[in-house]
């Protein structure tokens, strides 16, 4: 697959191969993340979607090819310079014992700080903003340990937002959250894109949520991109069968008019209702 984009986008992957200790997981992949999009990467377990995100976030150095940020290879940036342009919400949930929410969120300012610039007015504003946006200002003085899972994820998001990067990558931001908190997090992402023009790239497991929130959907299989584009063009019964090995119907979500995947009922032995219809 070659890129035919006329204008280069801010975040691109060119023929990038990624893996661990010689096991190649992503193989010669090209991707241009449309500026100002909410790009969501979907795929089955082991499809390489999280590995791709790690490559885009410079957590993993490509074995071949390159990841370009603003036209320059991302590994050539000084670490802090890259961190002022591109942020990441990683999956790791570990926080130091007893740290308070405001102290945790303020760590997001690290790439903007130095020994003699430990807390500028811009730092102050960014942290207040991030707490406000994620509705966590009321938790500022609390210990992070004592928060619920939904509150924690909002606090992590606040930390990433305090970093004030135009591009934000999110690695499965909704895992371990109940449905209401999943919607909260994704609504906030959609808002960041719409109101602030941020570019977001997320890996999501839930295909229906992905189709609902993405402005640009990327489907991966075996370390390659098999389809990308607007959700209504990408999410088809044929593609879901191909990517996830799942037979399904695709209907229109009555709330958002986005594609909604309904898995086919798979009757099993002893399922009396369906054996009667004889469709075993």
């Amino acid at each position, binding site marked *: 697959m070659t890129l035919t984009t006329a204008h280069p986008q801010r975040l691109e992957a060119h023929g990038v191969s990624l893996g661990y200790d010689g096991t190649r997981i992503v193989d010669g992949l090209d991707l241009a993340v449309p500026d100002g999009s909410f790009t969501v990467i979907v795929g089955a377990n082991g499809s390489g979607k999280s590995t791709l995100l790690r490559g885009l*976030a410079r957590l993993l150095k490509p074995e071949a090819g390159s990841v370009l940020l603003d036209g320059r290879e991302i590994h050539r940036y000084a670490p802090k310079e890259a961190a002022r342009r591109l942020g990441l919400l990683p999956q790791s949930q570990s*926080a130091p014992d007893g740290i308070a929410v405001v*102290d945790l969120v303020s760590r*997001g300012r690290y790439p903007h700080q130095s020994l003699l610039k430990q807390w500028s007015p811009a730092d102050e504003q960014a*942290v*207040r903003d991030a707490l406000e946006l994620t509705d966590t200002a009321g938790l500022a003085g609390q210990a992070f340990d004592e928060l619920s899972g939904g509150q924690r994820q909002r606090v992590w998001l606040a930390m990433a937002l305090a*970093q004030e990067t135009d591009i934000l990558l999110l690695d499965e931001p909704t895992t371990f959250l109940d449905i209401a908190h999943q919607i909260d997090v994704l609504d906030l992402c959609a808002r960041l894109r719409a109101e602030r023009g941020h570019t977001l790239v997320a890996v999501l497991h839930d295909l229906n949520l992905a189709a609902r929130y993405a402005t640009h959907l990327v489907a991966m299989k075996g370390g390659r991109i098999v389809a990308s584009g607007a959700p209504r063009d990408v999410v088809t019964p044929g593609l879901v069968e191909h990517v996830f090995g799942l037979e399904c119907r695709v209907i229109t979500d009555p709330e958002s008019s986005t594609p909604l995947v309904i898995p086919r009922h798979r009757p099993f032995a002893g399922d009396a209702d369906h054996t009667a219809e004889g469709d075993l």
Partner: protein
Amino acid sequence: MSGVPASRSVLSAGPERARVVRLGGASVLVRPRYLVVCVLLVAALLVALAATLSISVNPIPLDRVLTAVFGRGTPAEELIVGTLRLPRALNGALVGLALGLAGALFQSVTRNPLGSPDVIGFDTGAATGALVAMLFAGGGVLATSLGAVAGGVGTAALVFLFATRHRTVAPFRLVLVGIGAGAMLAAVNSLMIVGAQVYDAQSAAVWLVGNLAGRDWTRLALIGPVVAVGLVLALLLSRRLAVGEFSDDRATSLGLAFARTRIAAIAVGVLLASAAVATSGPVAFIALAAPQVARRMSRASGPNLLASGLTGAVFLVLADWAAREAFQPRQLPVGVLSGVVGGLYLVWLLSREWKKGRA
């Protein structure tokens, strides 16, 4: 709403109650609580030093202590204070400072309260090096010190090597490999003692307990500069360590290549721990407990380096004083006392970690 008025920094909502001091374009964060804790610890250290110089079965009033320190006491007082008690107390303070700092550095980079040099084998390795110097190279002060540093550095390098996979170090694996290395090195130490001449074996065995008796000005001149340099280097790493306490991935995404910081912190920590072991032998408990106690006092996030070092110094001076005086006419090595208290503390810590599902 955080309830923090616009006139104050939002940071003041946290338990550190941080304030911002601005000078032109520069700005520095001040943590009043942390400062107060450090000042109180310095005061406690001075009180502990005064106590250990003065209060004893052979007491010397404080004013006589001061006279003797400045060389105007009686010959007996000057011998007891100037030659025996003062260098021993100062050695104790520096060893405690070094152990507290090393503990804070290691616990920070391993992200684990058990990741302290006495638990993960670095002290034992330094002791192995010192024992080799004592038993096979005559056992001079300098040889023993160099042996301890070589042993500590060698152990750290091996543990690091075995804990590395995919070109990165998993902190928890570092702790596990370190505990294993410590157990093996303890066996090596025992083997050396069993194989040595009776007299050598006995003095080596006493040394292995951890002792400050008879530590003189020569020792102080060796450990002093090492601790001073170690302290400065550690403090320079402080801000990076605070960012690295989440995970390597998060540190990278915040613009910090943490692998380098981790190696630097371990190098400084090994230097400090080895210097401590060279001076006193492996004193247990201080490196493990001091950072945890300091953190609970300061309630500050981050590695709490200075507070941990000062806590270690206060602990060790007090422990040595108690070991010297509490069981008179016998004087116990400080390692016996710190070992008993440390063992109980370790059991408590392990059970707490177990409940949190981390150990």
